């Protein structure tokens, strides 16, 4: 039976969370994430969701609270954005180092200064090294589906790593569209009850989050690294399983669009992808051999997959909404490393900073840049400066 609703990306996340049946929710409000936690609070009030909803005094406390709850054996949820994510930074490393299987939604939004509440991806990309798995979604349906997959991924015994699901602020969080809500039984079949082997237990007490000597410390860090590397295969498998149950899967770490014979490929992250596909479809009708690679996971990074998808292309552009000042966009740096042993021409486009709209025309200009790459001398090219 079809169960279609017309909801925003934020609401899709809230519905996904509800289906995952968390026991403890703690969050601090920050635009453009707020609607997620407002909806969850409503669900708790209506007793549609049997969870403890904690209002907390900061994002730092929100993440610390769900860590504490998680290691007692409760599935949890929190959400944040932008400055809030950075305020959590300390606890983020803490959670990944402690191998606490949290799931967090982040509404991608610019960082101050200048103050901006609008969307770009500098917040989460600046936390790329925090030891979290990072996934970026494109629409409301993928938002809901990935929340459910994120729980299965984080809690997988081999992974045991927190997962951050990123939605582009406003463009995705505030845009309404029709989505299919999976049946409760489907989700229950996919996502088993929360179990954490090392959890605190009155019968079998534990000492957690300890310190270690330098000699041991590196062994813990190696484990952490290996777990995220190992998650590559698990991500693919979970996506397939989810597809078998719900009929929807997303291609795992990365998806290619018309890349087979593409001579020019643009690599994207997040909700801009659809628009690029639209423009490239038009270009295809003009005989241009163009394709799109959408990165879904920034960690683990799909280096092999990108290499494979780009194998026939001579020119690769990366379009992203962030910049590591003084060098490249962070996505570009990662893509360039994946392609380091090829002789492909690489170029970086940075747009959408501070919420600046990326228009059809901007993408057409990007294409013309890719087509005439010999005329461009900069690695990093800011788009949309003209208007």
């Amino acid at each position, binding site marked *: 039976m079809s169960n*279609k*609703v*017309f909801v925003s990306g934020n609401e899709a996340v809230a519905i996904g969370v509800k289906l995952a049946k968390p026991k403890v929710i703690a969050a601090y409000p920050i*635009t*453009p994430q707020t609607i997620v936690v407002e909806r969850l609070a409503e669900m708790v009030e209506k007793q549609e969701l049997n969870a403890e909803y904690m209002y907390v005094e900061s994002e730092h406390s929100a993440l610390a609270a769900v860590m504490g709850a998680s290691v007692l054996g409760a599935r949890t949820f929190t959400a944040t954005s932008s400055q809030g994510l950075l305020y959590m930074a300390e606890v983020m490393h803490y959670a990944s180092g402690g191998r606490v299987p949290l799931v967090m939604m982040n509404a991608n939004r610019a960082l101050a200064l200048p103050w901006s*509440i*609008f*969307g770009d991806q500098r917040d989460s990309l600046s936390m790329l090294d925090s030891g979290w798995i990072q996934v970026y979604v494109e*629409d409301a349906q993928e938002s809901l589906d990935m929340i459910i997959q994120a729980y299965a991924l984080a809690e997988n015994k081999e992974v045991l790593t927190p997962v951050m699901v990123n939605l582009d*602020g*406003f*463009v*995705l969080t*505030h*845009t*309404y*569209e*029709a989505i299919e809500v999976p049946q409760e039984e489907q989700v229950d079949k996919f996502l088993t009850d929360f179990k954490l082997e090392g959890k605190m237990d009155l019968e079998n007490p534990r000492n957690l989050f300890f310190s270690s000597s330098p000699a041991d410390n590196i062994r813990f860090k190696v484990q952490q690294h290996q777990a995220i590397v190992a998650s590559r295969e698990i991500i693919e498998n979970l996506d397939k399983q989810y597809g078998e149950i719900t009929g929807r899967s997303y291609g795992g770490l990365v998806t290619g669009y018309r890349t087979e014979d593409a001579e020019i490929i643009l690599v994207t992250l997040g*909700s*801009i*992808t*659809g*628009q690029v*596909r*639209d423009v490239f479809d038009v270009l295809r009708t003009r005989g241009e051999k163009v394709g799109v690679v959408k990165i879904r996971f920034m960690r683990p990074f799909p280096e092999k997959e990108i290499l494979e998808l780009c194998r026939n292309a001579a020119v690769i552009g990366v379009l992203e909404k962030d910049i590591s000042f003084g060098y490249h966009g962070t996505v570009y740096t990662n893509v360039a490393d994946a392609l380091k042993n090829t002789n492909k021409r690489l170029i970086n486009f940075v747009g959408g900073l501070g*919420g600046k*709209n*990326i*228009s*059809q025309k901007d993408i057409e200009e990007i294409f013309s840049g890719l087509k005439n790459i010999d005329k461009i001398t900069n690695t990093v090219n800011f788009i949309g400066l003209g208007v």
Partner: protein
Amino acid sequence: MTEVTFLGRGGQGAFTTSRILGAAASLYENKFALSFPSFGPERRGAPVFAYTKIDTVPIRNRSQCEYSDYIVVLDESLYDENLHKKLKPHGKIILNTPKEKSSPDIICFDATKVAQEYLGTAITNTAMLSVLVANTGLVSKDSLLAAIKYDMPLRIASKNQKLAQYIFTLTKGVGL
């Protein structure tokens, strides 16, 4: 793809209207829709833009609407000559006003009066949406009525449905 812009003041329901239209198209018809507000902090009284994109194929372009097929102005005080520059060729402005139309690309309707009568308040969003739908056939009447029920709280949904039905009797055949 059809793009509709709703223009109102914060609190007048422009975004609700864009959502109802989107829901009507994507839940009750075989179409696809995106509805979204102009992004930013919400402030009562401030001018608010809201957008609906409707198409027969999935809509992948999530960027802001630069040019619209229809601009629905809920509050006459927000009307401005420059709005015409935001229309696509053959686009129309649908304006809430008791006055006669001053330009061939404007459809005028006194929604305030009708809203007062049916809702007991000058919230004109449903009336103006109904004028849009009745004149353009973007979605069917039934889909619109279903979407009103889907989106609005029970206590006001039926009043708004009655209002919509009344407008269909008024404007049917007006055409564009």
